[in-house]
């Protein structure tokens, strides 16, 4: 097995993994603020791509304008989702919330199918598509965009959670919602924030990956699952651990496809996930918690 092949697999895996990472962080942010596993997370990824297409093709905006518009539109969708579906039943059991988000994801997917049809659509790359050679492997400019934007988001995320009041308040909610409420943090608003942030992140992931993978109304399901997977490996952290989880998942998948079998690549990724969970039930980077009785 040659070095350049391994390098090619790893580079491809890293860019796919970066997308999983962004989705996974979105998962974790909502989970930490609300205790909800948001199965509709993948749909915001889809909305990011589809809204970009809408602004680009139908409204004829240039790409640099279409992208922020698409992020805003998807974020509004996330906000509406929280207001209409999650807030009305704040007291519900976790399992009911899971079903609500599943119902929500089916609904969003259906609306997208009716608005944009069932076809797959291509979105132009941000800056050309001339391959770049790196030591025998090749990547596209779009891969660099993906990696760069992921790094920026991770940094902004870090600054928000550790250096702003509302970010700190959100972390307080993640540790203990009731205690956070007692010290005067508006927990409801934090929940809303968490949905806004994660739908924005999801849509960004959807937009930067769309030029490579194309987009359609049903791309959200699998991406959402992979993001969930990344979050679990990262121990449901909304920081760097989940990012590493995503990158690890992407690279494992790509190496699995390259070195073992492309048909089994998802199976390989999930087997490794299971092994990780069996050995470290709290995720690769999660701290062991003692159960509160």
């Amino acid at each position, binding site marked *: 097995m040659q070095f350049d092949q391994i390098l090619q697999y790893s580079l491809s895996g890293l860019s796919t993994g970066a997308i999983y990472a962004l989705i996974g962080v979105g998962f974790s942010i909502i*989970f930490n603020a609300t205790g909800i*596993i948001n199965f509709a997370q993948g749909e915001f990824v889809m909305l990011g791509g589809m809204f970009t297409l809408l602004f680009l093709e139908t409204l004829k905006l240039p790409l640099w304008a279409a992208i922020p518009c698409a992020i805003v539109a998807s974020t509004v969708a996330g906000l509406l989702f929280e207001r209409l*579906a999650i807030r*009305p*039943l704040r007291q*519900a*059991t*976790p*399992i*009911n919330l*899971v*079903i*609500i988000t*599943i*119902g*929500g*994801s*089916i*609904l*969003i*997917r*259906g*609306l997208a*199918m*009716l608005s944009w049809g069932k076809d797959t659509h291509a979105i132009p790359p941000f800056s050309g598509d001339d391959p770049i050679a790196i030591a025998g492997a090749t990547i596209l400019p779009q891969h660099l965009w993906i990696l760069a934007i992921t790094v920026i988001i991770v940094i902004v995320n870090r600054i928000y959670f550790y250096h702003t009041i509302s970010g700190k308040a959100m972390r307080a909610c993640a540790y203990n919602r009731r205690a956070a409420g007692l010290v005067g943090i508006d927990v409801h608003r934090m929940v809303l924030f968490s949905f806004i942030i994660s739908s924005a992140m999801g849509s960004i992931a959807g937009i930067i990956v769309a030029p490579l993978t194309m987009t359609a109304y049903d791309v959200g*399901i699998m991406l959402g*699952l992979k993001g*969930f*997977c990344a979050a*679990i490996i990262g121990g*449901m952290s909304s920081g760097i651990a989940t990012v590493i989880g995503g990158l690890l998942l992407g690279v494992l998948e790509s190496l699995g496809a390259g070195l073992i*079998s492309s*048909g*089994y690549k*998802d*199976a390989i990724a*999930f*087997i490794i*996930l*299971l092994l990780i*969970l*069996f050995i470290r*039930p*709290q*995720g690769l980077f999660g701290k062991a918690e003692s*159960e509160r*009785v």
Partner: protein
Amino acid sequence: MKRELLKFGVFAILVLLAPLLFSGGYLMNVLVFVGINTMLAIGLNLLLGNAGQISLGHAGFFGMGAYISGILTATYAWNPWFAMPLAAVVVGLLAFLIGFPILKLKGHYLAMATLGLGIIVFIVFNETVDLTGGPSGLSGIPNLTMGSVTFDSDVKNYYLIWGFTLMIVLFAVNLANSRVGRALRAVHDSEVAAKVLGVNTSLLKVQIFTLSAVISSLAGSLYAHTMTFVAPASFGFNFSVELLTMVVIGGLGSVYGSFLGAALLTLLPEFLRAAHDYDIIIYGGLLMLMVMFMPGGLVRGVPDLFRKLFRRGKESGHA
């Protein structure tokens, strides 16, 4: 206990009489699926409703039952009546072994692990083309026979499937009211407290997981022999989610709730078919509304609704 038996008796009579109303049409065929899904929902509900352990991979056990039965009978010409229990034993053993590490996990980690398990099984169905026929599916699975009767029509299959379903309903009702059922509920409420009281919680959880997998496998075998054809698409992640939805919509921990959930989610797409492309939106919207307005599931929500309607009717009568 007497009340439980009475309830079961009424349910059984309704089930046995239903074909008189719908005989011959396509609805009979759908009702066969309601039976299979009821079995699956009861199996999952034992785990989720009674022991409080989530599974997003039950379609995998269902599929394994279907494929083991299907391959043994279609490719190796086994008698279905031997293939079915063998499938159940194999699936049970597998669930038992995997149960110990998996059920150590909690909450969303458990959800992820079972989801992963389901997806791995699904990929194996798809990729082992020589064995399973791959994505094109496996055809030529024989119908079940009993003496000179071959179960090859909707009505015959109805009685076959519902015979099994009724047995499982009876079994589940008994289990819930037994010592084991009480121990399970203790695990559900607080695992630590149950442990302190002397319940071997980890073994109990694995046992119920195994039981649940065996029921799913049995349903899978029956499915294979009534359909005479299986393809991987029926056993994917979506179906695991659908099963979970049946259990929650029906009512956690309730055997008859599982039936209601299974019946509703199996019949709903048939009625929504008239709405064409809008069906997916109505389906998603209904799911959300049901959970919002009947958080306890149909089995608690519907009586509540009647009570409210009745009371309101009375009030307006007075006015």
